[in-house]
């Protein structure tokens, strides 16, 4: 089953306006920058990007361009703003969030991880202790007031839990160190982060890989994401970026 697509623009050519795309990466590590650049080139609009921990702070140039081009409708993340308030005021994404032009929805990071895991594993929702006692328990945390839907809670064996829902994006972009033609993937160190769980969650997963190998070259014991989760594979160079979120 050869899933290799010869060019990155071809790999995303069917993505329509209004799509929801999972973007892995933990700040600078493991972000699918080449696929993000491809959606910028294609000019796809009304995008919802579902993240995990600040990949768009890591890919700051790509975020700036997406905001400037008016391509973003909504971003979901656990950590998506500059730490420094004064820097945030200068940031075009934060300005758009303040103006209500882009919706920004926030969950605890472990809840984001579990939302994807649940989606990939056929679980529609789950009770978690995380966020109890905070605004996260009361309702969806978003800058758009009308969308702050209340959340259900339940006491189980004396402890309170919040009901959170699975998150199933239309597409996931993942970045792997090595991939074979059949979509088996292996990540590098902490660049793994959200990549695997997002690959399992999305309806269509597109993997950009730094090294493309033949089936059998990756030892079956060393595969992090089995090929069943991956629809398309595209070869990219090793990205060069600054390891910073400042």
């Amino acid at each position, binding site marked *: 089953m050869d899933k290799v697509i010869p060019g990155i623009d071809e790999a995303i050519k069917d993505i329509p306006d209004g799509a929801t795309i999972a973007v892995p990466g933990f700040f600078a590590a493991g972000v699918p920058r080449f696929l993000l650049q491809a959606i910028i080139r294609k000019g796809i609009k009304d995008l919802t990007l579902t993240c995990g921990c600040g990949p768009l702070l890591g890919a700051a140039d790509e975020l700036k361009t997406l905001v400037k081009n008016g391509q973003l409708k909504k971003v979901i993340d656990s*950590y998506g703003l500059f730490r420094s308030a004064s820097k945030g005021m200068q940031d075009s994404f934060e300005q758009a969030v303040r103006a209500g032009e882009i919706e920004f929805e926030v969950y*605890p990071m472990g809840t984001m991880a579990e939302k994807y895991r649940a989606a990939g594993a056929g679980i529609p929702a789950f009770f978690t202790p995380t966020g109890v006692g905070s605004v996260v328990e009361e309702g969806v945390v978003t800058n758009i007031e009308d969308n702050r839907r209340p959340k259900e809670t339940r006491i189980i064996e004396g402890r309170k839990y919040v009901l959170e829902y699975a998150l199933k994006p239309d597409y996931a972009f993942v970045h792997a160190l090595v991939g074979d033609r059949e979509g088996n993937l292996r990540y590098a160190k902490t660049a793994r982060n959200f990549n695997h769980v997002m690959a399992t969650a999305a309806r269509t997963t597109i993997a950009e890989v730094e090294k493309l190998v033949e089936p059998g070259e990756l030892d079956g014991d060393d595969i992090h994401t089995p090929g069943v989760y991956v629809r398309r594979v595209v070869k990219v160079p090793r990205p060069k970026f600054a390891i910073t979120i400042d």
Partner: protein
Amino acid sequence: MSPKIKFRGLSRELIALRVASELEDGTYANLGIGIPTLVSDWIEGRDIVLQSEIGMLKTGPLATGEDIDQDLINASCQPVTELPGSCYFDIAESFGMIRGGHIDVAVMGALQINDRGDYAGWSNPARGLFVGNIGGSMDLCAGARKLFIAMEHTTRDGEYKVVKELSYPATALSKVNMLFTDLAVIEITPKGMVLKEVAPGISAEDVQSVTEPELIVSPDLKEIEL
């Protein structure tokens, strides 16, 4: 109301050192951003394993020069190194580990804390945003067996950070066990805040003057040993 007094206590590095000495050998710990990150500078050679929620156990010291690997960072986006026995895992596993009660101690920074062990750290209302950076803080509060807060005792302007009631959005309620500041070590008990240690040159009265809730002074009150 604010005390507007500033005492000269421990540096951020020495607050971190005092936290490090509270961690027992055999501890699996997770360090948050800020002063907590500095704790890692004081545990070299100790039998303490750092979990980084990005998906790493046994996180090594910060990497410099040629050791920097863009695929190897900690949860504060700093390049780090491996140690013998370091391992990597995906994010759902990482937070399963955290929520599932397998991390002994989480050390976090805070903007406010009260005498019931509630604390606020993820959002400063002065920023004027309802949304903010929650990151992994709430998961660590929900799952770590013990929660330590490491912070400056007052704000830069001398306002209370140790307060009667949180005015900032809470990260978690009734979860904090110990508070380490530049001026004091305080244990949070069902009866309230017990002042256990004071920084050199600082008295219990000094600490109380910059602390809004009433402190219970431990009969064994002593100077912080470093």
